[in-house]
């Protein structure tokens, strides 16, 4: 485990709600393979116990896509997907813990919970990306990530199917960068 920990120089966490799946389906095919860092995706989804989303995302990239199980270790070059009905938390030894406590912002998984926990462990080595959505989840998380030196990127509201979620982090001034969909893909590949 220690070895993995030393090897991981950066973590990317992407959060999204309504309208964000389409963005991912456009961004993932363009990501370079192998991808140098772990990527964690936290989506609000209706169906909880289906593998459909994992399969759907897998079809769009050569990068391995894995739904998170409790205590899985972070590994570079893998895309992790938060399971439905659990919050995801990051441990100091770079493993995941799952948590089925109360919803946050009506959501489980909550994007805020994931962003905040990732910031506790990764601080300045964290990049968070917030996509389309109709919920304020992610806005507090973005502030928290900034306070701890992390980087924040938001999908440009005018390119989002539902602009509400991106607008919240522009309003609270916690976004470092505002990118359209191609911009997000380019940014990830240049990291």
């Amino acid at each position, binding site marked *: 485990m220690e070895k993995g920990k030393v090897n991981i120089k950066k973590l990317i966490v992407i959060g999204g709600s309504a309208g964000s799946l389409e963005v991912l389906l456009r961004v993932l095919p363009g990501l370079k393979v192998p991808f140098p860092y772990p990527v964690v995706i936290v989506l609000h989804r209706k169906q909880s116990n289906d593998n459909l989303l994992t399969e759907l995302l897998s079809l769009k990239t050569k990068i391995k896509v894995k739904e998170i*199980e409790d205590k899985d270790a972070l590994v570079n070059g893998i895309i992790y997907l938060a399971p439905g009905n659990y919050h995801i*938390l990051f441990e100091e030894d770079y493993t995941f813990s*799952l948590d*089925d406590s109360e919803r946050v912002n009506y959501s489980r998984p909550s994007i805020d919970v994931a962003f905040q926990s990732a910031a506790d462990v990764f601080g300045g080595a964290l990049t968070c990306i917030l996509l389309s959505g109709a919920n304020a989840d992610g806005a507090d998380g973005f502030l928290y990530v900034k306070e701890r030196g992390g980087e924040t990127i938001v999908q440009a509201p005018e390119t989002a199917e539902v602009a509400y979620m991106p607008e919240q982090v522009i309003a609270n001034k916690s976004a470092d960068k505002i990118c359209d969909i191609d911009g997000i893909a380019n940014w990830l590949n240049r990291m």
Partner: protein
Amino acid sequence: MEISVDEQDLKLLLNDLIELYGYDFTDYSKASLVRRIKRLLTLDHFPSFAELRYRLKTDPDYLNRFVEEITVNVTEMFRDPDFYVALRQQVLPAIGSKPFIRIWHAGCSTGEEVYSMAILLHEAGLLHKSLLYATDLNPNVVERARQGIFPLAQMKDYSENYIAAGGKSDFSSYYTAQYNRVIFNEQLRTKMIFATHNLVSDSSFNEFQLILCRNVLIYFDKELQNKVFHLFDTSLDRLAYIALGSKETLKFSGLHGTYKQLGSNKIWRKEK
């Protein structure tokens, strides 16, 4: 403003809990434990971490509140219906041939899982020769489980879960509704034994054909998970089963080699 919880302070508080009350949370998942403590600091308006520690040391009644809020009691009947289909089709026929069936629900919370299991056993014609041991470290939830009274408002969802889990009867025949609550039938409850049991510090107390420990181990770190898996191992008959939550796994434990997983279900059979 959020209060930060530093590692040294946390250690001191956890030590107090062991020394004063015998509750050991040391090997719980740090990320989750710290998050729950921060939440409690906010909920109960503590100005600092030190004040929480002081309150816990001086007010034994507050311990109840602490345990209640630090642990997570979320549960439902027929949670993950596919899991119950696998129990019906693969596990019950196998353990049903025994003259007597003992099942342990470790971390039963308010009991929804236990009542679901009793219904399954009843429908398989096995309830009369079964005993369901339901334990949790939190005495409050154990007491609620014992009563078998649940909010009427949840029955619609539970009934849907029941049908998705392969239930063929009328779900409402298993309970009686009174005002906004329901009480489950006496016939189901007579087969249940409730007790407090702490997986961290208490030992094995019987041999079982099936142990369910679902969505409890996610709150433990890997070492503690392993310790609990060994406790389960000594509590399982040969060819008995262990069932975990839908995102939990036996694969990081030392037992991995001697247990066989049933397809992709979170159910393993003890082979040796």
